[in-house]
């Protein structure tokens, strides 16, 4: 079962790179602790893990003589050549296929309309070909994972176009969009328009939208290394870690695999609720990991608190009961690392996410109670990315809607003074109504979540 990553725009390609970096370093550079008692068990565990991981994310050289190099199952799309060019030339344990890349010379100019109406259709013939070839390399395709930003023209406009394109051409393959939410103060001035237009298109076509906010990532980085200047590389590395932590092999009850489409079925089966947040417990700098001990008990405790306070990392978590209570529709927990001898995961889950907790934070008016399976646990005994134990929380909750609400407020101000509209409607196929409809649609979306 494989995932094809589609990296679109500068941000999408940078994320994609970090995702594959994390996956490869997690898989290949893992060395079991020498002191580990049952080394053989560990070894087979690791072998299976690595095999599964390769099947998911990598393919081999098309001519079967060279089986040693891993090729990322990834499609690189950008409307200018600098970033993709850099990725294709890098030396690493894996390779991005240059035949899987599409670049042209002229970017989308931060303009959704230019990306969606002009740039994307122009490239669709070639990209269709690339996608088809890559799907033929998979025996079984679980999902497309589309990485993009919501701010720029290429990520948002071209990304929207190809999400729609994939939905039309691969109606039975699940589509998951990983979207980077731009800094709330200025990366691109038109980010709010672009955001709304993109969200509208994605909601129509995608199965799930994982939102990652640059503001929060920046704060996380700041906590990890308070005295260092933070680069985009740092932010993207966190994204890579987060994504890999849910995509790497894991098992549910009944030995079910955490194929992305399965995970999405649990979380996003209702058409009106597709926004996902992704949090990890713990997040630490490399130095702190070495000096930390991990206990499942406290990890679960933090996860439980993080979820309903709407926090983003276990350090500096709010412990009071005041503040926003975040309603969650569904949650998937990914637990990675060896079991403590005295606790089973299921017991811990039942203990920390007990009936009262669930009824308070998972029960919704709109569904007249809980979802049929509001909480799913995935387990993997092999530790992930140097963390002896870690938990990832992928949740469908109210939180993003509140933030989108604030964004609409800003965008609406701009829209009601008709600022920048001329930049959008100058391209054929875009009308003022498109933007207005995006507003109406997003207001509805926010309302749905708020009325939970």
């Amino acid at each position, binding site marked *: 079962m494989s995932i094809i990553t589609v990296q679109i725009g500068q941000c999408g390609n940078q994320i994609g790179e970090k995702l594959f970096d994390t996956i490869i370093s997690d898989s290949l550079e893992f060395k079991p602790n020498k002191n580990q008692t049952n080394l053989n068990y560990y070894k087979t565990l690791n072998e299976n893990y690595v095999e599964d991981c390769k099947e998911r994310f990598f393919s081999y050289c098309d001519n079967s003589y060279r089986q040693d190099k891993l090729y990322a199952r990834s499609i690189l799309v950008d409307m200018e050549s600098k970033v993709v060019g850099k990725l294709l030339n890098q030396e690493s344990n894996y390779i991005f296929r240059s035949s899987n890349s599409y670049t042209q010379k002229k970017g989308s100019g931060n303009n959704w309309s230019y990306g969606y109406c002009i740039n994307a259709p122009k490239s669709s013939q070639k990209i269709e070909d690339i996608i088809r070839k890559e799907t033929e390399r998979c025996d079984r395709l679980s999902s497309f994972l589309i990485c993009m930003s919501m701010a720029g023209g290429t990520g948002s406009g071209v990304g929207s176009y190809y999400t729609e394109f994939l939905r039309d051409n691969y109606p039975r393959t699940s589509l998951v969009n990983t979207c980077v939410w731009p800094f709330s103060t200025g990366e691109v*001035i038109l980010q709010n328009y672009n955001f709304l237009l993109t969200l509208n298109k994605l909601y129509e076509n995608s199965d799930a939208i994982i939102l990652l906010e640059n503001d929060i990532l920046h704060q996380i980085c700041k906590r990890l290394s308070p005295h260092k200047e933070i680069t985009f590389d740092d932010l993207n590395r966190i994204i890579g870690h987060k994504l890999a932590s849910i995509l790497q092999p894991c098992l549910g009850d009944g030995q079910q695999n955490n194929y992305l489409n399965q995970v999405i079925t649990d979380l996003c089966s209702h058409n009106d609720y597709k926004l996902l947040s992704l949090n990890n417990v713990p997040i630490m700098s490399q130095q702190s990991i070495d000096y930390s001990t991990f206990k499942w008990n406290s990890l679960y405790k933090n996860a439980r608190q993080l979820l309903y306070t709407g926090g983003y990392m276990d350090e500096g978590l709010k412990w009071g009961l005041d503040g926003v209570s975040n309603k969650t529709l569904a949650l998937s927990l990914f637990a990675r690392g060896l079991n403590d001898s005295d606790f089973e995961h299921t017991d811990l889950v039942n203990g920390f996410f007990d009936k009262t907790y669930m009824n308070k934070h998972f029960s919704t008016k709109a569904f007249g109670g809980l979802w049929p399976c509001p909480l799913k646990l995935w387990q993997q005994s092999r530790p992930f990315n140097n963390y002896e134990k870690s938990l990832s929380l992928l949740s469908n909750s109210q939180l993003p809607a509140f933030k989108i609400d604030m964004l609409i407020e*800003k965008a609406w101000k701009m829209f009601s003074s008709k600022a920048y509209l001329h930049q959008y409607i100058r391209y054929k196929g875009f009308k003022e109504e498109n933007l207005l409809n995006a507003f109406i649609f997003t207001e509805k979306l926010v309302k749905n979540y708020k009325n939970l």
Partner: protein
Amino acid sequence: MTQNITVQIGQCGNQIGCRFWDLALREHASVNKKGIFDEAISTFFRNVDIRSKSSSYFETTEIPVGNGTEKIRNLRARAVLVDTEEGVVNEIMKGPLKEVFDHRQYVTDVSGAGNNWAVGHMFYGQKYSDSIRELLRKNAEFCDSLESFFVMHSMGGGTGSGLGTAVLRMLADEYPEVHRFVVAVYPSADDDVITSPYNCVLAMKQLTDYADCVIPIDNQSLVNIVNRVENVCNNPTGSGSRTNTFSSTLRKNDPSKILINDSGSVISSANSTSSAKKSEKPFDSMNNIVANMLLNLTSSSRFEGSLNIDLNEIAMNLVPFPRMHYLLSSLSPLYINEKVNLQVRGIEQMFSDAFRKENQLLQCDPKSSLYLACALMLRGKCQISDIRRNIEKLKPQLNFIQWNQEGWKTGLCSVPAFGQPYSLLCLSNNTCIKDTFLNIKDRFQLLFKRKAHLHHYTQVDNMDISLFNESIGSLVDLINDYKNLEKQNLNLKNGNGNEQIERIQILS
């Protein structure tokens, strides 16, 4: 990568262009140490082989970038030079930069435009329409993806304002998809050309109608900046010693040597370091400032960085309404060349300097006015957290329009400007520009009331007096547009008036 073509018109335009090409060569030479013709260089230069067998005097062989391993043979600037006199262009063709231009890149005449917009626009515009069009076409054909034209000219004289805007209009007709940046040098108040207010207003209508972005610059600001920088550098206060180290490292890595070694042909631009001392022209320092601005503006589309800004993104982000495309520019730190510069005390100061009155390339004070949008383009050793921190710091000091409270566009280019560890170009759309326009309007009306010198204009073929009325009307409209925005903003801020439309309500 995309390519850009500069169109230099008139004395001023050509002098700025000359400095731009000189500095651009140095910048690329300092980055591209192997003498390879790469994507970055190709944005402004062509690589040609003038000695290959198939080359005749008229035809040279183009060497494309290919897979980025071709050596540099002879660089040709992607430029079109136009003047109604021969002097400046001839000088360039004889000077150190002669190698980067060839005979197919310029059009000149001998008699000048006599500081008359109508002569430049109507007479020469007509006369050279075909030959300029042909030049542009040829140069455009050398580009596989033409992104923008940089049109450089003055606003006061006849050639720059008249012929320059005629060319601009031609570009708008023939290349509607290609962005048109105009670097327009405005006359200072004590300008010695009597008709400059006429020229300026007539040209402005053309700029408002046909340009995508105009970066107005005035001579007075450039003079002030040059004076400040030179004063500081002549009376070194500790920063001088550092400048020396820069120049000594420069000498070791003399860019000309690097660029020569493969082809053997001399790219003499770099000689200007030494020749600059001998034959420094009065405007060179001032034009260097403009050239530096242009280099910073295009850096992100030439070199890689973690947050690229393409040229078309600038108009997209900074122009909320189509006619209001006049952008203020300011540089920080200020420098004339790698030797003569104002060292800043650190990144924080660089940011705050960029918003000071003294760093603006047009005389105005944006800090006391209303910002519509602002772009920060950084080069060198800066990170996203530097930007975040400084935006937070600057925000309370600046007044942004209500509907664009977070109107920041940011860019990070990892290749620094030559001789600088880091630098910042700040572009902004600010209502304070209306003061400059008001000033021009007043001076125009002073003349126009008396109908002074009008006959010089009306005797030119096709020049109608109604054009004066239309042009001043256009300018007044533009000024009102800015005023209205200020008014609207005040209303929004105080929460009165019907300016704010309620958000859409969704009933359930």
